[in-house]
C-alpha cells in the first residue's frame, strides 16, 4: 500500500499532473464523459425493471425513467415472469435459474479440480510433452469457445445425451484459461527449491502437490472459480445447442430467449396465446435477476481479483 502511494506520488511529479493544466482538465473531462456514457444506459435499463408497462411504452417517467420506479411494478412484473410456462410449467423461470446454478457451480468445481493440479504439474514438473500440453492449453484458451459447440453437439448427440444437463456441466469443466491461471500462479509463488526439498524429504510427487502446493493455492482457486463461473453462467451457444429440446431443462441464458420470443413486443402471435404479458419491464426484471448471481460472485471474488489483477488480465 505504501509502495503504491509512493509510486503514485512519483508519477504525479513526473507528469506534472498536480497542476490544473489544460491537458489534465481535458483528460478528466474525457474520462468522466465516457464513464457517463457507460453508466447511463445501464441505470436506465435497470430502471425499466422497476417501471410500469405504460410508463415504459409511453416513454414517460422523466429522466432515464427514474421518476416511475415503484415496488408494486416489480411485484407485478415478477408475477408475470414467474407465471410464464403455462399450467404445467408455472415457475419454469426458477427451474432455469436452478439449472444454470447447477451447471455453473458444477462446471466451476470441475474446472478447479482439473486446473489446479494441471497448472502445478506444468509449472513445476519436468516430463516429456510438457510443452505440447502447454501449447494446446494456450491455443484452446485463446480460441473462442463457441467454435467447438457444433462438434460438441455432434459428440453429445452420438451418445444420446442431448437435453440433459450433465454433458453441459462436464464440458464447462474444461477450462484451459483456468489451467493457465494456475500455471502462472505456481510459476510466480512456488519456488522450485521447495519442491526439490520436499522430494529429498521423500515425499511422492502427488503428495508434494497436496502438502506443498495446495496450501498456497487459495488465490488461484478463487480466480479459477470466479472466471469459470462467470463464463458458465453467461454461456449461451453451448446450452442453446444441447438443451433447447428440453423446455424444463434449459439454463436461464437460453430461457431468456424464450421470454423474448413470447413477448407481444416482438412476437404478437405467440404472445396472444399466453396468460402472462411479458413487456419490457418484465424482460428487464428477468434479465436483472439473472445478473444477481454474477454480482454475488463478483463481490465475493473482488479482493482476489484486485490482488491478481495482472494475472487475471490476460484473458478477454
Amino acid at each position, binding site marked *: 500500500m505504501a509502495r503504491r502511494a509512493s509510486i503514485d506520488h512519483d508519477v504525479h511529479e513526473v507528469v506534472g499532473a498536480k497542476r490544473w493544466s489544460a491537458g489534465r482538465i481535458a483528460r478528466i473531462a474525457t*474520462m468522466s464523459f465516457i464513464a457517463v456514457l*457507460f453508466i447511463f444506459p445501464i441505470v436506465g435499463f435497470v430502471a425499466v425493471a422497476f417501471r410500469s408497462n405504460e410508463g415504459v411504452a409511453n416513454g414517460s417517467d422523466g429522466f432515464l425513467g427514474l421518476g416511475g420506479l415503484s415496488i408494486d411494478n416489480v411485484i407485478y412484473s415478477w408475477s408475470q415472469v414467474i407465471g410464464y410456462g403455462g399450467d404445467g410449467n408455472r415457475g419454469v423461470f426458477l427451474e432455469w435459474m436452478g439449472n444454470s446454478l447447477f451447471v455453473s457451480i458444477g462446471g466451476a468445481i470441475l474446472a478447479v479440480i*482439473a486446473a489446479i493440479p*494441471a497448472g502445478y504439474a506444468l509449472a513445476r514438473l519436468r516430463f516429456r510433452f510438457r510443452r505440447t500440453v502447454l501449447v494446446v492449453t494456450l491455443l484452446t484458451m485463446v480460441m473462442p469457445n463457441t467454435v467447438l459447440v457444433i462438434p460438441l453437439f*455432434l459428440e453429445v448427440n452420438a451418445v444420446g445425451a442431448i437435453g440433459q444437463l450433465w454433458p453441459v456441466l462436464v464440458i464447462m469443466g474444461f477450462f484451459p484459461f483456468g489451467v493457465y491461471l494456475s500455471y502462472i500462479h505456481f510459476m510466480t509463488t512456488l519456488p522450485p527449491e521447495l519442491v526439490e526439498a520436499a522430494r529429498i524429504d521423500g515425499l511422492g510427487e502427488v503428495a508434494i502437490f497436496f502438502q506443498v502446493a495446495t496450501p498456497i493455492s487459495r488465490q488461484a482457486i478463487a480466480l479459477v472459480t470466479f472466471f469459470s463461473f462467470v463464463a458458465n453462467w453467461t454461456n449461451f451457444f453451448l446450452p442453446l445447442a444441447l438443451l433447447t429440446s428440453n423446455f424444463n431443462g434449459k439454463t436461464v441464458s437460453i430461457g431468456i430467449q424464450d421470454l423474448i420470443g413470447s413477448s407481444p413486443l416482438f412476437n404478437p402471435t405467440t404472445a396472444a396465446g399466453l396468460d402472462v404479458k411479458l413487456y419490457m419491464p418484465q424482460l428487464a426484471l428477468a*434479465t436483472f435477476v439473472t445478473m444477481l448471481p454474477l454480482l454475488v460472485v463478483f463481490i465475493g471474488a473482488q479482493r482476489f481479483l484486485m490482488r491478481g489483477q495482472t494475472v487475471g488480465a490476460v484473458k478477454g
Partner: protein
Amino acid sequence: MTTGIAGTTRAPERRRTAAGRRRVLRRIETRGAWTLLSPYIVLLLIAGVIPIGYALFVSLQKTPTNLEPNLSGFGGIDAFVTAFTDYRFLQTFANVFSVLIIWLPLMIIGIVGMALLVHASPGRFGNAMRFIYYIPGALAGVANLMLWVYLLNPAQSPIGGFWHALGFETIKAVVASPGTLPPILTAMLFFQGIGTWVVIVNGGLNGIPDEIFEAASIDGANAWNLAWRIKIPLIRPWIGYAALMNLAYGFQLFLEPYLLDQVAGGALPDQYTPTQLGFWFAFANSNFPAAAAMSLVVLVITLGIGLIIVFRSGLFGEEEK
C-alpha cells in the same frame, strides 16, 4: 585376478545404478505429472480433442436425404462442397468482414486511448474510472442484448430522439434497415468488450518500469510524447494480442445477430454469420456433415489466429522456450 575383475565391473555398475536412480526419479516425476494432469487431460479429450476428431469424421460422411434417411458411409469432400457452394457461404464471411472493418479499428483505438487515459490518471480517480469502464463487460451475452433491445427501441430508448431523427419508428426498422446492422453490432460488441481490454492493456502499461518514464521526462517529454513515443511502442504486443483476439471473436459471432433477428421479428438474414450457417445446417436442415464441415472451417480460421497469438505475439514468450 578376482579382485581385478571385481574392480573393473564395480565402477560401471555403480555408474549404471546412478543413471538408473536418475531414470527412476525421472519416471516417478513423469508418472506424478501425468497423474496430476489426468483430470484435465480427460476433460481436454472429452471437450476438445474428441469432438474435433469426430466432427472431422462426420464431415467426411454422406448426407442422409429425405429419400434415404439412413444413408451413411464415406462421402469424401461432399459435405465441404455443400457448405462452400451454399449461396449464403460467401455472404456470411462478407458480413463478418463488414462488421470487423468498422469494429476492429474502433475497438483498438478505444482500448489504447482509454488504457492510456487510465494510466495517465494514477490514484483513486483512475481506479474508479477503470472500474466503471469494466462494468458493461459484466453484462455479457444475453444481458447485453436485452440492454441493447432497450437502447435500440425508438419508443422507449433514452436515445429515442436519435432514432427518430434518422427516421426509425420501430426497433425492427432500426435493426433491419439496410446498412444499420454492422454499426449496431459494432456498438454492442464495443460496449461489452472494451472494459476487459482496458484492464488488460492497462496491466501491460503498469508492467513498464517507472524509470523509463522518469528518464523520458528528464529528457523533456510531456504527457503526449510519453504516450505516443514511449507507452504505445512498449505495449505493442498487448495491442497485437487485443487485435488478434477480437479478430478471432469476430469470426464466431452468433448470439447478437441470432437474437436481434428474433427481436426484429425475423426481418434480418437468418444466417448472417458463418456460425449461424453451421447452426442452421445442424438444426434446421439436419445436415450434420455440412454442419461439421462449416464448424471446421471456422475452427481452422480461429486456430490460425490462435497460433499467431501463441507463437508470434511475444506475450507467451516464456512458454515458447
